[in-house]
């Protein structure tokens, strides 16, 4: 029997008429939304410190002092929740030969002509890009962020280092916001995606259209697996 390479052990076909496929279990979904919420709060408070015209956003947190106090704490929360997610998702986000073809035909991707694309596993290159992008930027942000966390680490980091840290933190923040926009946008543009993170399942058609190798593998596993 064949070891699954395009799916998580937990992924399975739930019903066959019509086909629905379980993509994310409850824990991952909850964790994802914790991460998402943290990121949004960080984005709002961070932008307030980033540009005077957005300083009013500190109001969302009850003023500059609390925003300054809260921002790094939420940062830590995000870092932890994301790491948990990372541990669960990193394997299937490793690059595969198909990604190359997918990227070569990025034009069709944007046009939505998926029939011209190779069959894909659980994630396409775009999703992988978001995954690794987020990972990298979150690490950069947490490290530079701690360096400029005045309240606890003020004395530990030399001022020239803090200057670089604050600049890096700003640049990384801009980048992660761009990635975030792309992620959200893609989730909505590609219909039927959002339910994967809400209900946890996708339709067979969605799986067939976007991640056929993944669906194929699950189907195969169902067949050769223990009979119901």
């Amino acid at each position, binding site marked *: 029997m064949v070891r699954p390479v395009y799916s998580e052990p937990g992924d399975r076909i739930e019903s066959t008429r019509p086909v629905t496929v379980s993509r994310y279990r409850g824990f991952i979904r909850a964790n994802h939304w914790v991460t998402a919420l943290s990121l949004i709060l960080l984005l709002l408070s961070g932008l307030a410190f980033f540009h005077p015209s957005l*300083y*009013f*956003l500190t*109001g*969302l*947190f009850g003023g500059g002092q609390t925003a300054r106090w809260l921002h790094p704490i939420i940062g830590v929360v995000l870092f932890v929740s994301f790491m948990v997610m990372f541990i669960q998702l990193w394997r299937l986000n490793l690059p595969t030969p198909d990604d190359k073809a997918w990227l070569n035909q990025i034009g069709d991707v944007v046009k939505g002509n998926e029939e011209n694309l190779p069959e894909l596993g659980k994630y396409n290159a775009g999703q992988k890009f978001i995954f690794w992008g987020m990972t990298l930027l979150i690490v950069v942000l947490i490290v530079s962020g701690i360096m400029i966390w005045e309240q606890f680490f003020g004395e530990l980091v030399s001022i020239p280092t803090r200057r670089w840290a604050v600049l890096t933190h700003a640049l990384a923040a801009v980048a992660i916001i761009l990635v975030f926009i792309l992620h959200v946008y893609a989730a*909505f543009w590609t*219909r039927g995606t959002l339910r994967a993170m*809400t209900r946890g399942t996708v339709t067979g058609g969605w799986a067939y259209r976007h991640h056929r190798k993944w669906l194929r593998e699950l189907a195969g596993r169902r067949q050769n697996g223990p009979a119901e």
Partner: protein
Amino acid sequence: MNIDLSRRGFLRLAGAGVAATSLGAMGFGEAEAAEQAHVRAFKLATTTETRNTCPYCSVACGIIMYSKGDVKAGETAELIHIEGDADHPTNRGTLCPKGAALKDFVKAPTRLTKPRYRAAGASEFQDITWDEALDKIARAMKDDRDANFIQTNEAGVPVNRWTTTGFLAASATTNETAWLTYKTVRSMGIVGFDNQARV
């Protein structure tokens, strides 16, 4: 039910969400509410000035004491600041690190506020009233003087000295205190009399 939201639906909801939270938190007021630029209120306004001289070294810098309340008017006066007297010919308003901090010397946590008595062998002080303290002292002096006063020496020359009680005078009390101390000490015949001129 169908959780696929229509695009407009989503946007509307999201927008509403943002609006709701931010307005709800009344965040927008914040920035405009920034405190206007201002300097600290001048703390010497409506204080009472008193001329004095620094009690430390012998340069005797002129100082001005600023207090809430006026001693001359019989009020209780609380010292709030001390600064050099710019009219003074010697220091012209300047002060050294000691003089500049005189206020906190006057208000030192270890200033004495009550007479205290330590009994023989005791490990702590105990409070005592002024009357008790002064009577103790007078009694002790009288007894010691009567017992040890030397009226004449071996040669029978009148010497009228008292050597078993001594008095160390200060270095920073006023001339007037010094004079009253001198009178008191000398009239009793005390010769063990000294001040801080040497140390």
